[in-house]
């Protein structure tokens, strides 16, 4: 139970972390030739989106009515327009305002109804304070991206099987980069606003799900197509009343289902994308769902709520287990590759918790019990870092990246990524690895591991400057047997874990 103090000290300003090799993180100034040579392979993937290059659309809010001259319409016309524009509330407001034209009882009763509605909504808002936020603020609050509203790169997703990735930008467009093709399709859609998350469909080359403000879009981008602006006919719109803004989406690893979550909606929507039909999984309590994470083996889904409670759904019969947190809401979580262990963090604490699942292997629909333990894992309170924004575990279960928020008030505690070495077999262990840093004045905003990097793990980081860089971690995986010639890494092999490091283990699970 130790802290970040055991980590090697962060690099001085201006040095960037290049990669991990031989069990140490190499920085930019060290000058390792073979590393630099190797990194050139990745260079086409690094991108830079200066903020100035994006054409932001001017924020036109709700109505442009003020720009037009007033024009006398009949009461019915106005009521109909109000009903169309803003629903029941608008209609009632309109009737109440035009009390000179309608019978008194009507205006009074509509005023009463309006007052009652407002009262009820204010009461509801006081129960769940997040409901009073605007949808943009809500996405920023619950997104996995640090400081989402100000971030040039709002979402990032690697394709699960190939080297292509999608980047959602501040101007609500999505660009798809593929090192093997010259075209970079740009996806734009009328409904594609405030993108909170993107994810590629597993076991599919083309489908990309996008969590937008009012709906979920599923783009079908033909990888062989040469067009740079796929038409909006390529996108399926999945929307459900009351299910907006969507802050998180998750494909099932088998690629058959898509789950989406909104902090406004207490139900998790499970979509059958082909049929465009959805099954709402309604559970009261919590006031919404902020984030979804499907375990890599497809058996569980983590679904935190805006209050101090998160749920773990089991995907066979879709039953859930409630886990009340102690302090705040669950901010982020990630699954081990075999789906047996869940790491999660709680807002307001600098601790990573671990949750271990032992699943009954037999397929019997009646068995649902799965959890065994819930323990306090690592305390990250230290001189650097701060609260935890998000967690990412590489697909082999060897490196765990933790994005720490830092302290906005203190200049010496910027946001930073701490990387742990992890071992899940035979006991769960966390060892310090180091900090990942970018250029001076660039804060990490978003990170993701490459899902199928051959030589170890590849961490992609989006920085506040608009740059996207990739930090490879070269190591030989202990668990995964590597095949033949193609799988062997080119870089010098890492030595055995030195004893000094092994003693510094941050956390070791007790054998029971």
């Amino acid at each position, binding site marked *: 139970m130790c802290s970040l103090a055991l980590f090697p000290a962060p690099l001085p300003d201006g040095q960037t972390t290049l990669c991990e090799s031989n069990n140490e993180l190499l920085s930019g100034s060290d000058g390792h030739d073979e590393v630099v040579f190797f990194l050139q392979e990745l260079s086409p993937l690094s991108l830079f989106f200066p903020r100035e290059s994006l054409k932001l659309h001017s924020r036109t809010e709700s109505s442009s009515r003020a720009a037009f001259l007033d024009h006398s319409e009949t009461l019915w016309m106005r009521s109909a327009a109000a009903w169309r524009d803003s629903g029941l509330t608008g209609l009632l407001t309109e009737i109440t305002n035009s009390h000179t034209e309608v019978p008194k009882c009507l205006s009074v009763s509509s005023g*009463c109804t309006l*007052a*009652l509605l*407002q*009262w009820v909504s*204010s009461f509801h808002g*006081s*129960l769940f*304070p997040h409901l009073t936020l605007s949808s943009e603020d809500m996405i920023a609050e619950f997104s996995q991206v640090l400081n989402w509203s100000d971030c040039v790169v709002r979402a990032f997703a690697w*394709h699960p*099987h*190939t080297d292509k990735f999608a980047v959602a930008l501040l101007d609500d467009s999505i660009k798809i980069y593929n090192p093997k093709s010259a075209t970079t399709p740009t996806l734009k859609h009328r409904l594609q606003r405030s993108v909170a998350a993107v994810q590629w469909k597993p*076991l*599919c*080359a*083309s489908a990309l799900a996008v969590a937008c403000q009012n709906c979920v879009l599923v783009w079908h981008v033909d*990888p*062989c197509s040469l067009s740079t602006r796929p038409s909006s006919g390529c996108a399926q719109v999945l929307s459900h009343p009351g299910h907006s803004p969507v802050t998180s989406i998750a494909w099932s690893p*088998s*690629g*058959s*289902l898509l789950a989406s979550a909104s902090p406004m909606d207490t139900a998790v929507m*499970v979509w*059958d*994308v*082909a*049929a*465009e*039909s959805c*099954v*709402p*999984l*309604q559970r009261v309590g919590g006031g919404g769902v902020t984030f979804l994470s499907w375990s890599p083996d497809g058996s569980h889904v983590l679904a935190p709520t805006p209050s101090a409670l998160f749920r773990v759904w089991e995907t*066979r*019969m*879709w*039953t859930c287990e409630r886990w009340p947190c102690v302090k705040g809401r669950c901010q982020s979580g990630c699954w081990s590759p075999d789906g047996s262990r869940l790491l999660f963090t709680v807002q307001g604490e600098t601790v990573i918790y671990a949750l271990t699942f032992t699943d009954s*292997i*037999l*397929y*019997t*629909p009646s068995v649902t019990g799965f959890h065994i333990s819930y323990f306090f894992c690592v305390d990250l309170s230290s001189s650097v870092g701060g609260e935890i924004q998000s967690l990412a575990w590489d697909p082999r279960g060897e490196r765990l990246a933790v994005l720490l928020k830092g302290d906005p008030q203190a200049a010496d505690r910027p946001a930073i990524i701490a990387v742990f070495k992890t071992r899940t*077999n*035979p006991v769960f262990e966390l060892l310090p690895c180091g900090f990942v840093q970018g250029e001076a004045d660039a804060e990490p905003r978003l990170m993701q591991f490459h899902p199928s990097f051959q030589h170890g793990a590849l961490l992609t980081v989006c920085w506040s400057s608009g740059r996207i860089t990739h930090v490879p971690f070269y190591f030989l995986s202990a668990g995964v*047997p590597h095949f033949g010639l193609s799988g062997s890494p080119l870089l010098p092999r890492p030595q055995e874990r030195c004893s000094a490091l092994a003693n510094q283990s941050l956390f070791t699970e007790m*054998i029971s």
Partner: protein
Amino acid sequence: MASANDPFQFQEFEEAGNLLEANRDATTISIEDEDVKPEKQRRAAGLNPAAGGGDDEDAGDYDDKTELLSGQQKSPPFWTFEYYQQFFDIETHHVKERIIGSVLPWPGKNFIQVYLRRNPDLYGPFWICTTLVFAIAISGNISNFLVHLGKPNYKYTPEFQKVTIAATAIFSYAWLVPFALWGVLLWRNNKTMNLVSYSFMEIICVYGYSLSIYIPAVVLWIFPFEWLRWCSIVVALCLSGSVLVMTFWPAVRDDHPKVIVAIMSAVVLFNILLAVGCKTYFFSKPEPALPANNSSVAVVIKTTMATSNGKGEKVSKFETLKLLEKCRKERDDAMHRESVLREKLRQYETRMRSTEGLKQKLKTLTMDNKELRKQVKALRTEIGLECSPKFNGKTTKDIIYDLHEKERECTSMVEKAGKLSLTIDDLTSELANTVTSKTLLEDQVQSLQQNLKDMTNNQRRLLKLWEDKKAQREQFALPAITQKPGQRPFVHKGIQTEMSVSTSQKLPVNAFETKPFSRDKDSKNALDKHSFPTYGNGYHHDKKTFMHDDAKVICWRAAASIAWAVLLLPPVTAVFVILSRFSLLHPIHTISECFSLLTSAGAIFSLILLCGVILMVGFLNLEYYTVIPTIACSKIALLGQLLHPRQFVNSSAHCIMGIIVAWCCAVTIGGRYETIGYPCTHSDGSTHMCLNEYHLILLLAGAFVGFSHSLLGVIHNMNFVSFHTVQQYKYLRFKGSLPLVVKCSATQALYSVRNYVVVYFFLGYIPKAWICKTLNLHLNSSIHPLDSIAGLLDLSLLYHLWISATFLLFTWYITLLLFRIFVTEVYNFPVQSSFTEEAHQCLPKVLTDKEPMILKFLALQDLALLSQHSPSRRCEVFSLSQPGGHPHNWNAISRECLSLLADLTQRLVAYHDTVATNGRAKSLSTGSERKTSSETSVTSGTEDLMSPRPTLMMKTPASVFARSIVGGPQSPLTAPFTPDLDSPFASPSLRRLTAPVEQCSPWHGTVQSPHVMRRVPKLWSTSTDSQANGSPPPSPASVASPQQQTSKPSLLAQFLQNRKEQVKHFLAKRVLIMYLFNKLPEASSQALFADSQAHIWALEGISYLIQASFSEDQFGVVQTALPSILSCMLVLQEAVDRHFKLPHASSKPLRSASSMGDPTYKTLRFALRATLKTAIYRITTTFGDHLNAVQMSAEHRKRLQQFVEYKD
């Protein structure tokens, strides 16, 4: 001004005065005493504003002015009289307003801001509290009196203590709680910045006014009805509580939610405490004889208070006398106490004396002791203890000390032992550590061994492949073997396996069959115990009984769903009764009436009737359901479905049930709907039975709604049962879809009632006249007829029609929903069983069965789920049969899945051909129709011999329309007017001619024949080598192709063709006809994929199994089938891709939310496309580069390579 027109206060005072007069008691003195002062103050206050604000201003102006001035007025210090005087400075109408405001809380109107306006008064609160005190006391007394009224041995005694207690309680509530609240708010205000803060006086004022609602409530409590009291309490609580909550809401709104909840709940809680406390204390079971002395004590206290206050001039003589008495008593008491004390003193003195004596005794005893010691010492020396070495110089004390020493040593030894054990523990833990590291190493060793195993496996696979190659080479050498007539077209690479299967086929029919024994008696196990159906010809007989058994599962499920629907009926009926009879004016009356109605005999009778209806609906559901929707491709086909006799039976059943339900509704609603006839007096004075048109209209509405329900059921395919992609428990699924059902039934009822009203308006006179005639009823001419605009524009009538229709549809929909949920529940089939009797319920066996369709679907669903979730059951699939070592399970499953997929491919290809030739292939098809019919008999004859694979038919026994329209077994594909028959005109004339031939031969043969046959070389041309290699497509048609291609259109067919063209040409000019016969866009595509759910599951199951086989298949059973599976999938992929390039195929259907019909069949083709791609990707990602070792044609390899590179 104020005093003059202030009847309210005057009355109040009078009331108090009355009370005082009535109870001539000492209590009143003090009260009256207090009473006088405020009264004076009030008068003073009433005059005051007149002096300050000007005499002639009216109320409104004055009001504004005070409001303005109040801020500037310099208020005197709070200890002065003037300070409080200003709070009594108030107008009558203000008081009235405030009281009304407190009684009627208005959302959004804050009491303080709206009514007080920074000008709180104490006048109202004080008087309200006082009134309340007296009201409580008086009504408490009265109610007590009323309770005991009439009892013989009861003598009424007024309980005056009630006044004091009420005063204490209410005044403390009205002063202390505001004080506490004020403090809390002040404290919270410092913590968080609030915009709103209230002064102490405002809070008191609010609290005081909030009590005003209790005054009428308390008066109501006089009546000795417990429910009335509680009702009034609840109402009063709600009103006053909401006033308080709404008032203090702005003050705490910005605070922490927990604090808000705490404050608000405290406010409400105190309110409840007060109300409920008052009620229970003052109006509960009376204690008739309260001890009198109690009251007298109270009286004395009051009097003493009065005297001490120097206001004793009003104390009566009686009182002084009483006081005197009391003093005298006290004096007596004091004297008595003095004597007692004296007695005590005496006792102490005697005790002192005895102590002296004791001291003396002690002294003498010590002296004796000393002497004794001396003697002991002398004795010791005499005995010689002093000189013995052991006891030398040791006293007893020393010895004891020695003993202690020893003990200490002992304890130290024990400690050492403990330490030793600790070290032992350490060592053991170290040992454990080493053991774990050992296990770690062992793990690594194991993984290495696993690697080794994998490698050997690979090696084995390679060997096998090599062997296969060898075998193929041999086949090249002897090509005649594969084309042996009668041989199954399936030639597996697992040569050994294949051989064994085919030998088993050649076994005599009854080789494995045991005699079926009668087991009708033990009905507890629905599906079991049958003869093992072997791969042979005894199959048909077997299937029949087997089907009978398996259908029982579905029957049980349907029965369970109906039982639940019946159980749900009473609550639904209760809700309906309450909704139908509810009247806003008498809510309580309505509810009590409803309850009495629900328990009446008539209600129970109608409930039984409704149960019967539900049973009937459930039975119809079971009879008519289908898992494959029948999709009408043109308007005329839809019309045909609607006019079909079976549908007629269905509709009339629904009509009758609708009438029954409507009759029950009419009885439960009661009133004017209750009976069909009523006695009425004619104009000439004679009485007759007249027709009650309200009853009639309700009954007819039921019939109409039932009829339209059954028609809509056909149009929306409501009998189609779809399977969900997401598995959920039944209860959760039911709960999830309940709101949808309510919404659907309400909207559907609305539309039905609208249509019904229109119909009744125009045609209502017909049934009316008919009923009148048959039942010999008269029409009451004095009442408006209902089939007029005025009669139908009756809101209550419309409401009752709507609610009855909703009730009817809701119960039926609920039954349907439950049926769907129960029937589609996952069923676990065993993969293999150790007993031969149960073999026919195993998954591979059920999969290959054709009927009932739903079981096949359930088996496929189970296959998809087991392949995804259950390693142990997958293991069974990959296992080898015990004697013989054949992968029977895998073979049966894969063969079935492949045949399903191949069937779909053929269908798609055939359809595509028809579309591509744009009807020109028709001559060929019609020409070959007769030819092939004879030929299919050959095919079908050989089919049983050739393979146990099912035919292309997807037929449910329950798909009524399909069955009865054509009158022969057919696939959805071949339903009349379906896409492959390119023109509907072809059918009537042609069918008449070809009917006798067609009826005896399965229709499918004719359909699949020409197109497929022509198509086959094209499709498989590139894969001829693979065909030669032993992986031919599993299609029997391809085998029979050479003979059919020789067939040529005959003369008769050409003549018919010409005639048809003429007729068509003629008819095409008629717009209506064209409208009817034009194909609905997209419908043909939907029809093609109508049963695709089965294909989806087959794809999922097979791909998951292949994925799992990579690590779980120990014997390599999957390897042999891999090439054929891959090619089958790729061919299907090609066909599907081609299909989606057709117009309308890729257009999405409109989503209609509010219909009970399941629209999933409309999107099945998209789901199939997605699943197919995913399945191929699943295999390619799992196998990766290993796929290079799989044999397949170059074209397929190219195609597969695209998948490997993620380019498709």
